[in-house]
């Protein structure tokens, strides 16, 4: 049976949803093996068992987190060679993609990013050109490396749990020599809102909020949504750059995307193409965003959003 290596980086005391999605996907492609970096808590260990993982690999070195990417890629390459894995799955985070990039070169393996589905024969599906095309691609190398977007698989434990054995993998000596070292880390203040890239609902504001994200944030909180912004709004300094959706920001594909005060120029439309449902609120009836909205409201967001927020709170009791 083909082996599928899943990279899990510093899970802490519980695996996050996207990790469970990777483990679920791995079982559809073969026998799942985990390459772990960081502590292995007992709860995480039992989750691995529930998800049918056969082996948990751990690095011989403890300092992989002190460097950017390169040593983690070296560890994963050693793990893949050790187990003979033919597929490696990683998160589609910026770091996941970079580890995948270097791993691909080390293993002479094709790398496919932004994957939303994988067939049993390894064909991966993704969208390109900001969601305007859906493509099917495949690595034509013995090993393929895939970074998988969150929210495309329903996490499901295995029918028969496994009893994973733990194996240590030697991290190649010298893998930190040509690596950038992280010399300081600051935690940013957490907003408490869901992460934009895997949020089920996104409420985004643009030029039309005119400096006041209050109504956007309040509606987001009533819906348990993430807050997004157009580039015009982040460039104006109204909201942190982390909230930017689209070309140079984050690609989102939520169930629901509510756009407020965003005109919907082509690159903004591109950033929300893959949302299942789009709602747009804009004062200008001519805004291109209304061409792609499932439900559009020509009106003032400062009237419409607070009214919707109050109504949601009322219905939710």
């Amino acid at each position, binding site marked *: 049976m083909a082996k599928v290596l899943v990279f899990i980086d510093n899970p802490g005391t519980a695996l996050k949803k996207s990790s469970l999605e990777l483990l679920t996907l791995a079982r559809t492609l073969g026998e799942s093996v985990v390459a772990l970096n960081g502590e292995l808590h007992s709860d995480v260990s039992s989750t691995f068992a529930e998800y049918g993982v056969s082996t948990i690999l751990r690095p011989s070195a403890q300092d992989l987190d002190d460097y950017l990417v390169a040593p983690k890629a070296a560890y994963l390459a050693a793990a893949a060679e050790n187990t003979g894995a033919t597929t490696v799955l990683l998160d589609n985070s910026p770091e996941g993609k970079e580890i995948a990039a270097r791993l691909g070169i080390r293993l002479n393996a094709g*790398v496919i990013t932004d994957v939303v589905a994988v067939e049993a024969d390894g064909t991966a599906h993704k969208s390109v050109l900001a969601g*305007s*095309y859906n493509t099917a691609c495949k690595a034509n190398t013995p090993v393929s490396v895939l970074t998988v977007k969150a929210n495309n698989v329903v996490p499901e434990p295995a029918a028969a749990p496994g009893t994973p054995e733990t194996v240590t993998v030697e991290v190649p000596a010298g893998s930190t020599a040509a690596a*950038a070292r*992280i010399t300081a880390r600051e935690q940013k203040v957490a907003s408490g809102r869901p992460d934009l890239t895997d949020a089920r609902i996104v409420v985004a504001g643009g030029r039309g909020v005119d400096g006041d994200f209050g109504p956007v944030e309040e509606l987001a909180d009533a819906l348990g949504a993430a807050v997004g912004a157009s580039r015009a709004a982040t460039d104006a300094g109204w909201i942190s*750059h982390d909230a930017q959706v689209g070309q140079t920001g984050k690609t989102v594909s939520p169930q629901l995307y509510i756009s407020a005060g965003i005109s919907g120029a082509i690159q903004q439309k591109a950033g929300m193409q893959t949302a299942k449902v789009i*709602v747009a609120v804009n004062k200008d009836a001519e805004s291109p965003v209304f061409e*792609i909205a499932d439900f559009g*409201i020509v009106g003032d967001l400062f009237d419409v959003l607070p009214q919707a927020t109050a*109504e949601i709170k009322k219905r939710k009791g």
Partner: protein
Amino acid sequence: MKIIVLVKHVPDAQFDRHLTGERYTTDRDESILSELDEYALEAALQLAEARGGSKAGNQVIALSMGPAGAVNAVKKSLQMGATEGVHLTDEALAGSDAAATSLALAAAVQRLGQDGPVDLIITGMASTDGETSLVPAQLAERLGLPQVTFASSLDVDGGRLVARRDADTTSETVEAPLPAVVSVTDQINEPRYPNFKGIIAAKRKSITTLSLADIGVDAAQVGHSGSWTTVANAEERPPRTAGTIITDEGDAGIKLVDFLAAQKLL
């Protein structure tokens, strides 16, 4: 310092973009210098200017790999202030995936290093067409260099660089010895516009054209034959159509919630 900046010729994202041909490659007519690469070029120019600019022997080399039209990305870089341009172009390069692209670029960088060591290779955070952001890391791996990606600030002191990286939950300070590969975000600076003086000066700057033979790469290692991934199929997503559009008559917020409830999104 000798800095190479990778500049890519990409379809303008402000218009519809298309895949073309049997192998679904990007249609590169109507292309421009990738906006994200302007930040890389600006970062390089600032580093060079802080050290006395070209008069003090600092080089900023704009390197583009692509079809004939890609020379325009190099020309714009020269107008902004790059000291020289290099255009790597060869029929055989068409359709290269990230692995094949990084192989060709690594060979080009090594070729440019023959006339004096390269200190830094700076790239944008991703191309605006492929959007994989794989190439900077693959280039670093192939050249055996440290990589610092998504830098939102960059300083060089002696033989080391210090950069800041902002992720969603953390900010990091990173250090690496030179030479290194750095990708920069659009938060690092405000790229300059070419001014009249720059446009005139660019006409006198040289652009070197390199072929695969010049960088010692075999045609089979790049393009479709050298790529490790294949696009088997591509379908244009059907355009979204407009749904219900209403004008607010004082109760649009309530109607919005009714719509969400009907869609089972509450």
